């Protein structure tokens, strides 16, 4: 299990977490709280970076960077773009 090659979307989650933290949009404690709030089964069902994007998103919404509605609308748009990660990019 040593040779895991991170997927691009995982590296982007990592980068978003670091950059948003550096810009003061949330704190490590805020991320931690969001992770704890997911409940125990989140740690069984979801992968590491799945939990991290959920925590980043939760903190950005709470911080007023964007709204839950904006997120929901955008995620629907993205689903309509195509069936793979590459096809779902805007551009």
């Amino acid at each position, binding site marked *: *299990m*040593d040779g*895991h090659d*991170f*997927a*691009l*979307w995982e*590296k*982007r*989650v*990592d*980068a*978003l977490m*670091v*950059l*948003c933290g*550096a*810009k003061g*949009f949330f704190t*490590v404690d805020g991320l*931690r709280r969001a*992770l704890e709030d997911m409940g125990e089964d989140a*740690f069984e069902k*979801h*992968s*590491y*970076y*799945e939990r991290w*994007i*959920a925590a*980043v*998103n939760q903190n*950005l919404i709470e911080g007023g*960077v*964007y709204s839950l509605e*904006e*997120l929901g609308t*955008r*995620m629907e748009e*993205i*689903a309509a773009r*195509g*069936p*793979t*990660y*590459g*096809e*779902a*990019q*805007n551009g």
Partner: protein
Amino acid sequence: MPHDHPDHAHDHGLSPSGHPYRADNDGPLTYWQRMEIAVRELLIEKAKITPAEITAQIEAMDARSPANGAAVVARAWCDPAFKARFLADAGAASREMGFDIGPLNLIAVENTEAVHNLIVCTLCSCYPRNLLGLPPDWYKTRQYRSRAVREPRAVLREFGVDLPDSTRIRVHDSTADMRYIVLPARPAGTDKMTEAELASLVSRDAMIGTGLARTP
């Protein structure tokens, strides 16, 4: 057939040359991938972040590797004054060598004949990532995180490190604000080696404490 793989010559899902297809980025789009795309696009549209910043951050993280830590360890082995500074403030000593490690608060713990140090993050995944790059997958597993504190000697034996009972094992639990790096013991018979040669003996695991420095 360019390759002879008799066992799975008739298997499904093999390339024309008889190899299994490697997993790629084109599986079905997941909910969490959609969330990543949405979060990134919203941050960019609201001018909170630029695509170039994201790319630069990924490149900076990819460029970090255990070789950076190995260079610091080798310097500490060669230069007693540097070693003293490294043990006093490992972050400052790493910056002194030119490594951009950001705000990382790094604490070095020294292995000796009497003491062996082992690093874990029982909560999640804290690791000196700004010096060594991203942690190996096993470091983040529940198995390692719980067993490293409960039965460190057994974990170490699995990693091939069998220490005498007389060696005390100290397990250090990392946090986001306080991360550790092990200064491995310098192997015997390396007196004439250069700093660069010494660095090649220092593995990632030696700096986590699940390994020892290699003997030349």
